[in-house]
């Protein structure tokens, strides 16, 4: 199966180019430092267990945001050159005359990168959760679901960067993907404000951005599973005051949205294959 050959090659390249070791060492350092920080919370003067739980839950969301950012930026930086630089350097010229379809090359790269993203999300997230639990005794309500959404966010952005990589130069594809990522983040804030103040125009813009680039939607899916019930209740009671907080989600993602994300992924992958198949080398 040539898709698996290319996927293995992609993971091997990340390893040989020392990407995995660099990410591993840095992640371990972050986990150790943040865990130490969390462990200080219960030792603060006059702090109650409820306050420790409250602070831990909010800090956990912030740390998750940092990891999701690392995943999003990292997967973009790796995916944007994946096809484009192979074409520029002539590696594609050497590989594609073999009995391998262009779609197999592209899907192999996607599979390898998706595995790397999922593996990083799972390992870094679990290490961090264990560190937080050891330091404070706090665990979010559903850390596995939250990590799955963080991984999905990274995979969505990686897939978009891969599509851009079939036509754009590596640096252009990377910049475009990151701009879209941040536009989607602002779109998410616009959606929250539009809903809180019942403004249809702003709400429509927010929904549009969440449908076009589902990264922020998935990030909110992750947040929901990191929020303990008392935080949810307090935030809901705050009413409009919570509007625009990019670190709050008051409901799980609806099934229809999850189905949309799956359809979006399939459509973008299909478009990437179509684009690559028609590219002259």
């Amino acid at each position, binding site marked *: 199966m*040539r898709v698996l*050959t290319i996927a293995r*090659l992609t993971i091997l*390249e990340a390893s*040989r*180019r020392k990407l995995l070791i660099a990410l591993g060492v840095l992640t371990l350092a972050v986990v150790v430092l943040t865990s130490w920080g969390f462990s200080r919370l219960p030792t603060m003067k006059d702090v109650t267990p409820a306050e420790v739980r409250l602070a831990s839950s909010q800090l956990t969301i912030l740390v998750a945001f940092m990891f999701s950012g690392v995943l999003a930026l990292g997967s973009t930086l790796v995916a944007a050159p994946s096809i484009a630089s192979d074409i520029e*350097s*002539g*590696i594609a*010229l*050497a*590989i*594609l*005359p*073999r*009995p*391998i*379809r262009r779609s197999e090359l592209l899907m192999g790269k996607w599979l390898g990168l998706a595995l790397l993203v999922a593996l990083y999300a799972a390992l870094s997230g679990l290490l961090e959760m264990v560190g937080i639990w050891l330091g404070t005794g706090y665990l979010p309500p559903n850390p596995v679901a939250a990590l799955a959404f963080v991984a999905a966010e990274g995979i969505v952005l990686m897939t978009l960067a891969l599509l851009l990589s079939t036509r754009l130069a590596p640096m252009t594809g990377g910049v475009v993907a990151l701009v879209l990522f941040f536009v989607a983040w602002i779109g998410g804030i616009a959606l929250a404000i539009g809903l809180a103040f019942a403004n249809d125009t702003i709400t429509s813009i927010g929904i549009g951005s969440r449908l076009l680039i589902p990264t922020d939607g998935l990030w909110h899916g992750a947040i929901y599973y990191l929020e303990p019930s008392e935080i949810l209740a307090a935030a809901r009671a705050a009413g409009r005051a919570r509007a625009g907080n990019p670190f709050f989600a008051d409901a799980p993602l609806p099934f229809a949205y999850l189905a949309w994300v799956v359809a979006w992924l399939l459509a973008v992958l299909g478009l990437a294959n179509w684009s690559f198949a*028609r590219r*002259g*080398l």
Partner: protein
Amino acid sequence: MEAADAASLAVHTQDLAKRYGKTVALSGLTMSVRRSEVFGFLGPNGAGKTTAVKLLVGLALPTAGQGWVLGAPIGDLATRRHLGYLPELFRYQGWMKAREVLGLHCELSGMARSDWKKEIELALDLVGLAERADDKVEGFSKGMQQRLGLGVALLGRPELVLLDEPTSALDPVGRHDVREIIRQLKARGTAVFLNSHLLSEVEQVCDRLAVVDHGRVIATGTMGQILGQDGAVRVRVTGLTPATRLGLQGYGSLEDEGEWLTFRGLAPERVPELVGDIVRQGGRVYAVEPRHETLEDRFLQLLKEQGD
């Protein structure tokens, strides 16, 4: 030619054309390469040579025309198992070792895993990289990368090997080695499509060749056919009047350079007759030299004729 007829050929194209936007890279290539022959593909820069090779190996899609490689339509996935290809401008993954690059191509070509080791060692020996097999490619010179590329192209005993400027980065020893490899390939029945602008190289190894310019074939045939089988003869002569000289034009196209007369298109068996005629008409002959037209002479002449 029908597809069934194309099956007996290594390559056959019919009005194959490729356009990139407004740029015409290939404007109607019609040619045939027989199995087991070494076929030279010549042309000036920008003539469409590399585009033609890319179409043959399925890297680009033609905008018009048809082509068959080993009897199958160009781009056919299964047929690519029997092709070896050395691109002109290429690179292998610098982080891989030479042996790993060869292993990857064994895997991608669908070769049985049990054959990999033997094929890899064979290729490494053939291109002189056995001692560098476990070095990373990023440390290789351009010439060594070209040797590795040649090794990759030869994996799995392909039926057709397409070499796009295979010696452009090689030293004289490397070029000699490549010529030997091409001869070995021919000896074992492999067809070789050699795209090169090194005319002496083509002259030494090719059975037949095609000259392309502006995206179409302007001459094709054996080396003898391309160079002109009748050749030319130079005669150093004195004592002939201008009128007598004009009278000698019946022997061939005459170039009058004073003491030296060059007769083009003169059959070798007519040379004694020419000399006798000159002597009879009072000429004194000092030298008779067959003039061997080189491929470079003929190549330049063909391009000039196209330009005119």
